């Protein structure tokens, strides 16, 4: 291909988007308490944009509903994400975007754990460590150029 910048992975596999969550009668009932469930967390992160492609993380299968675990009673959330290729240089950035999205969208009683699906990335441990370190996450968000990329991933352009 001539011209333009070359992408790391120009022709990735595309997965189907899941449809909108179906509305149940109990969700419309004023008196019923709806617990926060896996699907609700997945809905928060599935439409995050990929930093490279005009595609969502769901379409690239970076996030899947089965890799989202939430326990509303104990206030914990665990998300595993899978980079499209083992050497993807964007892994940290994607993880950071997921983390920031959850921090902004969940009540602060939740403990949020975001990490790479085991065995899917070359520098898995290093990335996990960065994402788990509260101070490093906070410091990363002080960096305005990094925050800019994260915010772009979280804007609803698609």
């Amino acid at each position: 291909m001539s011209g333009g910048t070359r992408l790391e992975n120009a022709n990735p596999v595309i997965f189907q988007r899941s449809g909108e969550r179906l509305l149940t009668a109990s969700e419309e009932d004023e008196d019923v308490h709806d617990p926060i469930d896996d699907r609700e967390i997945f809905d928060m992160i599935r439409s995050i944009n990929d930093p490279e492609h005009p595609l969502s993380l769901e379409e690239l299968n970076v996030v899947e509903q089965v890799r989202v675990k939430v326990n509303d009673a104990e206030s914990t959330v665990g998300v595993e994400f899978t980079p499209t290729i083992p050497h993807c240089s964007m892994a940290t950035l994607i993880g950071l975007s997921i983390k920031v999205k959850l921090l902004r969208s969940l009540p602060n009683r939740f403990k949020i754990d975001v990490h790479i699906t085991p065995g899917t990335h070359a520098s898995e441990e290093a990335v996990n460590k960065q994402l788990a370190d509260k101070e490093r996450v906070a410091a990363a968000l002080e960096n305005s150029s990094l925050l800019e990329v994260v915010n772009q991933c979280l804007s609803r352009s698609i």
Partner: protein
Amino acid sequence: MAEDSTLVLSLVEEFVSGLQDSKAKDAAKGVKDGQFTILQLVEALGLSLTSSQPQTRARGVQLLSEVLQEIYGELAEREVELLIAFYENRLKDHYVITPPVLQGLRALTKCAALPPGSAVSMLRSLFQDVHVQSLMLAERACVYNMLINLMETRESELKGLGADFVFGFVQSMDGERDPRNLLLAFQIAKNIIHRGYDLGKFTEELFEVTSCYFPIDFTPPSNDPHGITREDLILALRAVLTGTPKFAEFLLPLIIEKLDSDVPSAKLDSLQTLTACVSQYEHKDLAEFLEGLWASLRREVFQTSSEKIESAGLTTLTALTSCLSRSVLTSESEDSLSNFLDLILKDCKHHLCEPDLKLVWPSAKLLQAACSASMRASHIITAAVMPSLVEQYTNRTQCSHRRTLLEVVQRFIQSVTTCQSDSEQSVFSAFREPLCSMVFSALSESNSSLQITATSVLTSLAQQAGLLSDSDIELAVDHMIRLLLTEEDERVSIAVIDCAGALAELHPAVFIAKLIPRLKREMFSEPMDRDNREASELHSHQAVRQRCLSVLAAISSQPSVVQESTPVLLEVLSSAHTGGGLFSVDEVVSACQSLQKIAKQAQDTEETGRCFHDVIIPRLLSLALQAALQDEGASGGRSPLVEEVILSAMVPVISTACSRLQPTLAGQTASRAVSLFLDGDVSFLPDNSFPSHIQLLKKQQGDSWSQSQMVCLLIGCVCSLPRSVEVPQIDRLLSELEDMSYTCSHPLSYTSAAKCFAGLINKRPQGDSFDDLIQRTMKRVFSTLDSNSSSVRIQAFTLMIWVAKALLLRYHPLCTALTDKLFSLLDDSDLGPMAADSFSLLMNDSADVLNRGCHADVRIMYRQRFFSENSAKLVQGFNTAPQEKKSNYLKALSNIVNKLPKQVQVTELPALLSLLLEALSCPDQGVQLSTLSCLEPVLINPPPALIQQLEALVSRLLALITSPAMSVRIASLRCIHALSLFPVHEVLPFRARVLKAMAQPLDDKKRLVRNEAVKARGEWFLLGSPGGR
């Protein structure tokens, strides 16, 4: 005469030495009025023109030029010749004299009496003696205007100049920078190209001097007084660059280069220019650049970052391909179209074999863009890709892959449709068999999205004229029947119903022969042993029936199908009436809805009209009447047809048929219905075994309502007629309806009577008798309302509202009295809340009467008119009302404002804002909700008045996000979301406060509320943050 010469001398003196500019006007007037001639003026100028001071000479020429600008129309040819010679000579003079000289020349170019040859000589001296680009802005414009003027009137002379003219122009505009002048220069260049001036050896120069502005990069200053937009310049330049195939060899490489740019607007402009230019080109102009162009287009679509650029790229590819398709093949030239398509196929076809990768869609889109260009292109491409798509489909086993492949096929079929004429054989006829087996195999899969895609492919295939054979259609119908009867997924049945509708329009016979009898059998099949059936099975049986009812409606657009399908639906009704409990109330309602849908979509033929007016409507009336009478007599099981829901569902069937099918027959229906309701004439009803003393509009004994409520069917028969159709016995009908609306105590009966009355008076002609009628009605209504002890106040109120609506819609002046009464009722202790709610009735379109579909007299913008006449009264009423009545006013206000068009809301908002903010803090949840729903659309484009009240708005909205009502919480969060899109500097101060307050709804117990909170909070986080807003 001597007097005149002194006059002219003094004018000259005052202008030249006295520097009084206004004297030019006087001089022009003098010449016009014949006080002196232009020659005398020149003589008088003599001294100044020969002065040794260049300034004085300039001033002299200026006077002459300004006079010429006024009087150029009156000059004789001889005068013009002399003046031109003078001016040409002056061009060689000092530079300060050039500006007035150019002005004078420009005036002369507008002369009708320009002597032959003078245009050429003028331009020769201009190009020779003046360096245009060292002139000031206005003088350059002067030169361009001269050229434009001469091109309009002296085209043949200018063409005689040959390429010199082009060269002169190129030199003049070379380096022009001002957008105003550029527009003029582009216009000249366009004229040169489009009017066939000889470019000679200066083609490239003309291209260079214009193309250096491509792509246009210009942003008008914010206080731009000239109103030139970027778009103006782009279009003007595009007209030049794309005007002639002679530019092809220069333009195409330029476009390829600019497409490489990183600036999206440059890409877009390049693509659009390319699309425009190829419409003029032939294949030989394009030949050597095809590979480069293709590479660029492919890159733009494969790696696209914006939909706009992608779709522009695809349009360009279509344009390129159709240009190549136009070329005439000779024996020695190579076939450039097939070469180009080979190029595309080589790069794209293999991606179609990877249905799960990203590039499958961009490749498919490119191929389809080429496909849609011409018949030849579509033949070549489909021949190349169809076999491999079909093969792929059989080899792949994953449903998602198969679905993608089917969708690709679907898009190919659609893209071919655009370039195919009906008479030709379908491009796909060679692939009929494999395509059909693909579709049918997909329909037999269990995956619902595959089935849905297959139905739309089937629809597209069926729309290819002459492609599918009768046996294919029969097979398709079999598949549809199977899916309708067995498939549970609602999306699949909707898709099948759509597909059936499309196919039935093209092949009605197959549907009549196969589908309708089969569905009928299914619907009327009695469950074998009802007690043993599982609840779920019973449920699915009901679902099947619902689908059958919808599909019967969907397929009925051809008269022949209507003849067969409507009897089945009517049978559902009569079977429900005779009892046995075979059909539930819901199913009967659906049957009525299906009938209405048929009335709405069927072709308006005599046949269909007779079917509705002679069969269906009498049958409906007869069934309803039987049910009503039966109820009267027997104490046993009531027929379901007296249920309000069913009657209300019958009304639209009748009114739709009366409003759009066969006006003469509708008139007949109306007169039959009137004689039934007024005189008990039952002769036209089928199964006629009715007693002879029926009086449907009179008060029944013992307050029985089963007959009186039938008046709602009368609405359908008489209120939706076209205005050309007379309703017989109208006066008697009106007076009985009015009486009835007072005497009945059954809500459906008196409301229907009031509606029917209103529907009729809305269409009555203007005049004294009409006014009398209204006056009488009003008098009775008011006196009833004013007596607090009256038992029929609610009835009177209902009648008043409907009459008010009927008059409001047609701008009748008497309406004001009624609405004033309505406002005063807002304070009424019993009727107050009802009055507040009734404003929504006034402002909304009503479904069954008084709407445009019913041919009612509805003036445009009646809502705005009502609002502007009454908003002040409302505000005043609110201010004076006692505290406990204020909420009625707020509710009334939000009911009115909610229905206003957005532009009006925005302009009226400032006046009402304080009231609306008040409404937000009103404890009534209904008021809160309707106020929020009228605020939300306004917030998308906030008027300045709202921004000034931001503080009050934000605190009231934040208070509502903890409301006990879920709907209020959701609506307020949506409004807060909308606030985040306000100008950043206005809302940024609230960011921290909003983010903090929104932490709470993130933990709301309702998921729907949390979803809104997540969306809104996400947007507020982006506000003022890098990469956000």
